[in-house]
């Protein structure tokens, strides 16, 4: 097939070829086994998607209940008592972090599109890919088993010692679940790294890779290098609880702050596991809907690696008030400010990509606009927290809660939704209702800001986080925030209903509804099991829009015959 960018929307040719899509081609197993025993990266991506969004639904409900407790100030205990509330925010954090955002885009859309975008038939280790899904499910089940233990864990998702050692609730189970999830993450990471190194199609040089692949590459390195540190830290908590070894227990001479170091050595880079893949998606979407090449391709690619690297150097800013020495505070604050720069560069590049483009305001692009706004607010509030004087005041308050929800929800998850709107037509060959998608985004955007923006103000006023009760002076803002959560959930329900309706009942769309130029748009929708009938030979940059390059002669994409 020729480059569809030259004939946008022309999908008729693809349907004429008698190729079975991966959805129809069940392989040697039947029914559900055709899914849970499949080593096809596309099917595994969808397995991940189903499981991840199920847990997202649970996490959202927990978050909704947490906001509901804010109906009345003070410890009235009308809705939840303290213990219940503490379990709520712990489970909300654990589920959202470890079961949703960290696997998030890499495990779902990364699994699905990484091999296609580099012109491969599958990932390097398809069976390990399936294994990592099983580990994910095992970890999730173990976390859920803590529901039936001695009480729901109530430590917060950070499992800070010595509280996590002392509490009588079932922390061991939850920690063990996260430990298993870590291995799932590691295996995904090493699979992607090997895939990118070994399975690129002929001509797919490093600087011809789509930026989504670059982002996944950087992410995979963090997964491989950082996750083991979390694994050992959690293992130490389990050992501590089971055998009273005393490694972090201050009663036995241990240092609780050392635990925080180890925890954040992983968990700060983990923030970049969450945000780098969405940044990659943004680069894809902005190039496709601007109908021109991205501005500063190499700069964006390199800043992914830079972020992955500098992300390792700043974990200490989570501990500014934990009594770090001034030397550590100096370096960590300085480096924290520097990590802001590559992210800023990316934002500038994305906006510059719109310059002299031909902008097509389709739903994915609108999600991108929302992302840029929310991510800017999130990132810029991070500057306030990176500065020592203000961090001392604001850390541990609602300001931090607002900051990371703007980054992770407003940033990562909004663009995850955008990515769904961008790629679902490719995955299932059907288009959702675009009008409804626009409305859902509008409601989400309003609800999101209503929910989280008041938290910045609450934080500056001194409202600490993880409080099930609050002083009456915070009541108005808490109520605005609570109503915001209802609006947000309405938007989520409309959006998911629209997407599901689109998947099953939507109009059929061609292989390239948006006029994208990367390799996934050259194959039929939904993709065939083997992705490519013939492995393509890549001869040009990923966002090659010949129509935007009148001076360069159009040359067709050669295909191995």
């Amino acid at each position, binding site marked *: 097939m020729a480059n569809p960018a030259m004939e946008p929307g022309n999908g008729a040719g693809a349907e004429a070829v008698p*190729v079975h899509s991966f959805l129809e*081609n069940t*392989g*040697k197993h039947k029914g559900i086994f055709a899914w849970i025993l499949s*080593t*096809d990266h596309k099917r595994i991506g969808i397995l991940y998607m189903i499981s991840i969004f199920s847990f997202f639904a649970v996490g959202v409900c927990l978050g909704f209940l947490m906001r509901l407790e804010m109906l009345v100030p003070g410890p009235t205990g009308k809705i939840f008592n303290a213990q219940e509330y503490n379990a709520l925010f712990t489970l909300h954090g654990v589920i959202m972090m470890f079961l949703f955002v960290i696997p998030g885009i890499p495990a779902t859309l990364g699994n699905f599109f990484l091999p296609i975008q580099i012109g491969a*038939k*599958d990932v*390097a*280790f*398809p069976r*390990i890919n399936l294994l990592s899904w099983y580990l994910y499910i095992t970890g999730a089940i173990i976390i859920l088993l803590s529901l039936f233990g001695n009480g729901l864990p109530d430590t917060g998702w950070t499992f800070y010692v010595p509280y996590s050692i002392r509490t009588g609730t079932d922390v061991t189970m939850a920690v063990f679940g996260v430990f298993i999830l870590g291995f799932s993450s*590691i295996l995904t*990471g*090493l*699979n992607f*790294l*090997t895939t990118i*190194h*070994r*399975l*690129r*199609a*002929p*001509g797919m*040089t*490093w*600087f011809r890779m789509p930026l989504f692949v670059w982002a996944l590459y950087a992410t995979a390195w963090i997964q*491989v*290098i*950082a*996750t*083991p*540190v979390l*694994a*050992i*830290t959690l293992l*130490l908590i389990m*050992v501590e609880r089971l*055998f*009273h*070894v*005393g*490694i972090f227990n201050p009663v*036995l*001479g*241990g*240092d609780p702050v*050392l635990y925080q*170091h*180890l925890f954040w*050595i992983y968990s700060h880079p983990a923030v970049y596991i969450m945000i780098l893949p969405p940044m990659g998606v943004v680069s894809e979407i902005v190039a496709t809907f601007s109908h021109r090449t991205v501005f500063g391709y190499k700069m964006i690619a390199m800043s992914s690696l830079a972020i992955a690297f500098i992300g390792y150097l700043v974990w200490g800013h989570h501990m500014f008030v934990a009594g770090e020495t001034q030397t550590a505070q100096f370096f960590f604050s300085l480096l924290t400010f520097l990590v802001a720069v590559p992210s800023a560069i990316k934002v500038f590049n994305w906006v510059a990509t719109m310059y002299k483009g031909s902008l097509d305001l389709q739903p994915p692009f609108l999600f991108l606009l929302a992302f840029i706004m929310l991510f800017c607010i999130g990132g810029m509030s991070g500057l306030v927290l990176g500065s020592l004087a203000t961090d001392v005041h604001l850390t541990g308050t609602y300001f931090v809660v607002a900051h990371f929800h703007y980054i992770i929800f407003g940033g990562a998850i909004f663009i995850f939704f955008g990515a769904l709107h961008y790629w679902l037509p490719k995955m299932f060959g059907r288009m959702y209702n675009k009008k409804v998608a626009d409305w859902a985004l509008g409601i989400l955007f309003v609800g999101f800001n209503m929910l989280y923006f008041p938290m910045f103000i609450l934080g500056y006023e001194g409202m600490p986080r993880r409080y099930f009760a609050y002083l009456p002076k915070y009541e108005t803002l808490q109520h605005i925030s609570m109503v915001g959560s209802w609006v947000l959930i309405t938007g989520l329900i409309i959006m998911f209903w629209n997407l599901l309706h689109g998947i099953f009942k939507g109009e059929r769309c061609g292989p390239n509804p948006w006029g994208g130029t990367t390799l996934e748009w050259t194959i039929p929708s939904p993709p*065939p*099991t*083997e992705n*490519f*009938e*013939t*492995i393509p030979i890549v001869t040009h940059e990923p966002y090659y829009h010949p129509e935007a390059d009148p001076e360069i002669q159009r040359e067709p994409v050669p295909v191995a*015959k």
Partner: protein
Amino acid sequence: MNQKSGDRTLSEIAETNPGAVSGEHESEHVHHKDVVGAKMGMWLFLLTELLLFTGLFLVYAVYRYYYTKDFQLAGYDTHILFGTVNTMILITSSLTMVLSIAAIQRGKKWLCVTFLSSTIGLALAFLVVKYVEWSTEIHAGIYPGSPTLLNKPDGVVLFYGLYYMMTGLHALHVIAGMSILVVMLIFVLRDKITQEDHTKLENAGLYWHLVDIIWIFLFPLFYLIN
């Protein structure tokens, strides 16, 4: 075209993806061997293991810095003999491991089996020594949470906490490695690992050497403090 070394060259892609080249359509995924890819995956996994132990080494370093005196005090009581013997056992097992790979590369199946069995035997010997060592300690009343230990200074408690944690985790890796080697032995006997295709054995070997390397560092940290 900056094809870096270690990345797949075109001929390799063609080799491992014949379906891709011939254009024939297959209904099932067919996965061909990519030897360098398999090794790359294994190395990345080994790096994660390295980072796993790094966490523990970091904890050790910090506490050693906090409680230098206590650590030296506690270090007197570990058994340098057990440590040295076990180091030598593991180093020798690493040798037999590479020799078994060298043998299969030269097509000498039974020599490979001999070396591989000795590796497994040495791994077992390591565990036996470890067992004797731990029982000596436990007999002396030194184990996590024991009254004898809790009466000692904080640094000593931490030293032994880390001692059990780190050597214990290492012993788990020895057991895991040994189990893998047993599977490899069966593969060699059943000719699933041959002169032509011995990547599995090589990767198992890499894992085994990593276990050895970690011990090389544990040895001075726990047994050679005076």
